[in-house]
């Protein structure tokens, strides 16, 4: 899930462009574009939300749906946005510098640069990042 994936084609948008904006067609649901991914967000206090990611990072998708997630640098350096992938797959669109290899192995992802490749479930909230913090003297 850590590759430098960057999508450079978007057939979905071209399909959407073909749909005529007929006002009487609202009873006919538009076909769900293939690259649209449903991202289920889970907080540890039991809250949940479901947002749609259109070939974009989880954080952007959440913001577009009015769902607030923690973030900081938005470049993959600071780790404020750390979430944990519970199901599905994401690809980091830049190197996830804030995470060490063992964090990646344990499923931690940076929602600011993690782009879902399909439907997925991500554990979110500030307490997820705190999993990575260890007081070395304690």
């Amino acid at each position, binding site marked *: 899930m850590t590759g430098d994936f960057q999508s450079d084609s978007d057939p979905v948008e071209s399909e959407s462009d073909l749909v005529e904006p007929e006002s009487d067609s609202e009873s006919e649901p538009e076909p769900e574009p293939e690259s649209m991914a449903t991202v289920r967000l889970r907080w540890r206090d039991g809250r949940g939300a479901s947002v749609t990611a259109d070939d974009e990072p989880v954080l952007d998708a959440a913001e577009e749906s009015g769902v*607030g997630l*923690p*973030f*900081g*640098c*938005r*470049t*993959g*350096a*600071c*780790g*404020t946005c*750390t979430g944990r992938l519970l199901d599905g797959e994401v690809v980091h669109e*830049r*190197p996830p*510098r*804030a*995470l*060490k290899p063992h964090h990646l192995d344990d499923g931690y992802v940076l929602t600011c640069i993690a782009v879902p490749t399909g439907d997925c479930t991500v554990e979110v*909230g*500030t*307490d997820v*990042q*705190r999993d*990575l*913090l*260890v*007081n*070395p*003297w*304690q």
Partner: protein
Amino acid sequence: MSQPDASEQAGTEQAHEHHDHAGPGYMTPQAAIEESTPERRAYVVANHVGMDVDAPDFVAVVDVDPESGTYGEITDRIDLPNMGDELHHFGWNACSSSCHMGGLERRYLVVPGNRSSRIHVVDTKDRDHPELASVIEPEEVHEHDLSAPHTVHCIGGGTVVISMLGDADGDLPGGFLELDDDLNVQGRWEPPGEIDFNYDYWYQPRHNAMVSSEWAAPKTYQPGFDMDDVEAGNYGHELQFWNWEDRTVEQTLDLGEEGMIPLEVRFLHSPEHAHGFVNAALSSNVFHYWKRDGEWHAEKVIDFEGREMDGWDMPVPALPTDILISMDDRYLFGGNWLHGDVWMYDISDPANPRRADSLSVGGYFGDVQEVQGRELVAGPQMLQLSLDGERLYWTTSLYSTWDNTFFPDEAEQGSVMLKADVNPRRGTMTLDEEFLVDFGEVPEGPARAHEIRWPDGDCTSDVWM
């Protein structure tokens, strides 16, 4: 925004009419002591980042006038437009280094977000009700392959230089970003390739000197402290001494294992002195640095021993994360964040600091663990001293991820701002338990406060040419 003309200056600085200088600040450090009046309000940056509060970070106006009905309260706030900034250090468009520059005034606060690399400019023309004037977006900073802004100093004439801890990816090297006199990005201040690590800096123009210190790459310190990074050499332990006019590093001093993570660099205020101090936070030492025969030297002069905590694996270091020098250059103040000590050392002989007094408050071992019934939760961190040297204030938050590691309860309770009364003739401090600012009571949810500044100059921002 443009910097104002001299006709707009009235009322912002104290008692300058008696002097021949037309600019901001004070002619000398002693003039700052004599001419300043006791601080009535403080500007304090406060953060929600890293906490379960869905709100932007803010600059607080705190009433520190004991005669006021709102003493110890946050009387106004500048809420920033975005979340996730992590405000940390901030500074002025002009200080005493511009005291001969007619037409300039100490008016604009430059307030960077250390995580976001977004830089805010706050107009304090109305000292009680400052307003956000402009915002430099992260993309404008990244364009110069820089990120993670930290120390803000004006360098005279209305321009500002900010130490930057990383490149556009949050990796090494860091550098310095210059803002022009309209507080727009001018570009990189120094030629690329001078440094790797960066953190704080201070300049001493009469010695054509600047000193900079070292934390780590943003990708290292921002996610939180990890001992593996120390062992991997990902934290700094050097001081860089610069040729101020040439903007190049002339000498590097490696402080070694006893100088791990050198943070705040403080020159003596007198522009004649080529002496200063730096706190090596992780090694829990303070170094004195000085210039002699054209060479810079550094020597450990204060050493804080680790303390045993029942049931813990290793002795806990003191972690002195901030220091400052009183405006009369007599005392070095500091705080040991983990242990819970605020201390003052007599530095009248800078090579041989003498412990004058200390307070045991907050942290893991402090004797005082609550003020006015409010649990302190964390230790003394960012300090600010009144210009007359009689009142020392401090906050208790270091950095969101480090707070969450060492004082996790602060994420739920927020931080506090505390105060001690100082007797600078006797070298003593007394905790003032009448004073408490509780950043846990912010309406949106608890906040953590960091650096403190006075509207009219303080012991950690003014420089004399």
